[in-house]
């Protein structure tokens, strides 16, 4: 089952396309990292997946075949928007009560247990909690709904490093316990490197990369060699991004076959996730998508 599936999904605000022609098929059971620079369209994509925004073109189905925003979808998907919006004038206990009353399925014991573990007092007004505590409360509310899919929009953006670690540890523990799928967005890749096993790179409203992290990393490598020979290599291999300095060139290539021979005189190194993402972000025409290639830009050796 695909937790989120989109076909030709696009959203236009006025004359700008925030998201254009996105085709995704995210399978269940993964922790999905949605990365890209600010304004890339991450929030727009997430909002359409949870039914907050209507697409301009295309459609998005969730949890197999449910239309996004339908009652069944709302029931099974929990969303935490950017900056974890909560009713600041309510107490934590009231916030729990309210969320319970807005959902069919609710695990009060779990919610209270989590809050106790996190030392978040039940009788304090939400507005008086720290940023990290509010984020944890929002996560608690989402998890207590026992969703199949959890969607988080930049959950770490306003958290300090300790709060960030605690939040991710908490989230991963919930994934271990419940087996739910998670989609989270961030514009800081380092945050997501240790937890993501599925990656989507979004840039300028276009999906550049979509796939399992393991497969993506295995399917790319960095070739280091003489700059003079770089163009040669670029002709023959699918180079995503090239960086040269003096006599040395580093080429991030996409391996066409499983065991691709390294050109003589070149060294091959495996690629890290952040390196991979940065390379694609620097090469707007490149893409690593499952299935047929959607773009074919001829751009000094950068090929899709």
């Amino acid at each position, binding site marked *: 089952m695909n937790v989120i599936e989109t076909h030709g999904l696009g959203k236009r605000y006025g004359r700008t396309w925030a998201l254009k022609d996105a085709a995704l098929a995210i399978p269940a059971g993964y*922790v999905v990292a949605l990365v890209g620079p600010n304004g890339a369209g991450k929030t727009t994509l997430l909002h359409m997946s949870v039914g907050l925004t209507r697409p301009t073109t295309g459609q998005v189905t969730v949890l197999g075949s449910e239309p996004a925003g339908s009652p069944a979808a709302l029931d099974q998907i929990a969303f935490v928007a950017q900056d974890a919006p909560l009713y600041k004038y309510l107490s934590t206990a009231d916030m729990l009560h309210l969320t319970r009353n807005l959902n069919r399925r609710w695990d009060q014991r779990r919610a209270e247990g989590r809050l106790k573990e996190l030392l978040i007092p039940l009788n304090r007004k939400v507005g008086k909690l720290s940023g990290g505590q509010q984020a944890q409360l929002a996560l608690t509310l989402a998890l207590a709904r026992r969703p199949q899919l959890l969607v988080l929009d930049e959950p770490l953006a306003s958290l300090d490093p300790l709060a960030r*670690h605690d939040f*991710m*540890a*908490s*989230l*991963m*523990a919930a*994934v*271990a*316990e419940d087996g739910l799928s998670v989609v989270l967005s961030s514009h800081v890749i380092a945050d997501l*490197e*240790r*937890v*993501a*096993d599925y990656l989507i790179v979004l840039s300028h409203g276009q999906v550049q990369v979509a796939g399992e992290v393991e497969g993506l*990393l*295995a399917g*790319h*490598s960095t*070739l280091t060699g003489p700059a003079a020979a770089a163009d040669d290599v670029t002709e023959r291999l699918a180079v995503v991004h090239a960086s040269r300095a003096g006599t040395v060139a580093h080429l991030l290539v996409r*391996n066409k076959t499983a*065991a*691709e021979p*390294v050109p003589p005189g*070149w*060294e*091959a*190194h*495996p*690629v*890290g996730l952040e390196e991979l993402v940065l390379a694609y972000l620097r090469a707007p025409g490149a893409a690593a998508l499952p299935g047929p290639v959607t773009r074919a830009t001829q751009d000094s050796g950068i090929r899709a």
Partner: protein
Amino acid sequence: MTIDKGTDSAGPADGAGERGQAPAMVFRLDPSSGVPTYLQLVHQVEHAIRLGYLGQGDRLPTVKEVVSSLAINPNTVLKAYRELEHKGLAAGRPGQGTFVQGTPGAVGLPELAALRKTLLVWLRSADVAGLDEAGMVALFTSALRDFHDRRGETPVPGDRDGGRSQAGTSEGVA
């Protein structure tokens, strides 16, 4: 790597209440080492077994415990534990956890000493032949790979060590 025999640390934080036996070790990660996370976990367990800190029947931390302290994907832990099972170093018991099993590859201390001596002899010969340290490492790694290839095993984890691998295949870790 922190070893915790678990006999004197009770309490739910260690999971003793959950499974009836406290986990025998706690993991730590080195994010800048270039070694994939799951392999770091595997190595830490292997290391612990090799040095005798982990013994037969000791319980490894549950996926949830590891993930709660390290904030990594649960599948990574599962992969590490599967790898350990594949190597015969651990076995999962449904509903109870993953336990250390057998210690194949544990080499006795006198054998270790003898091997060390042979290695030093080799190093001296290499030095005489004019190889520097990097050259020695490169030669050794290459020979090790050949050895494994002939035995039909998976490539050496050492391939991923921070940029010190030599010209050869460009495989990442499968």
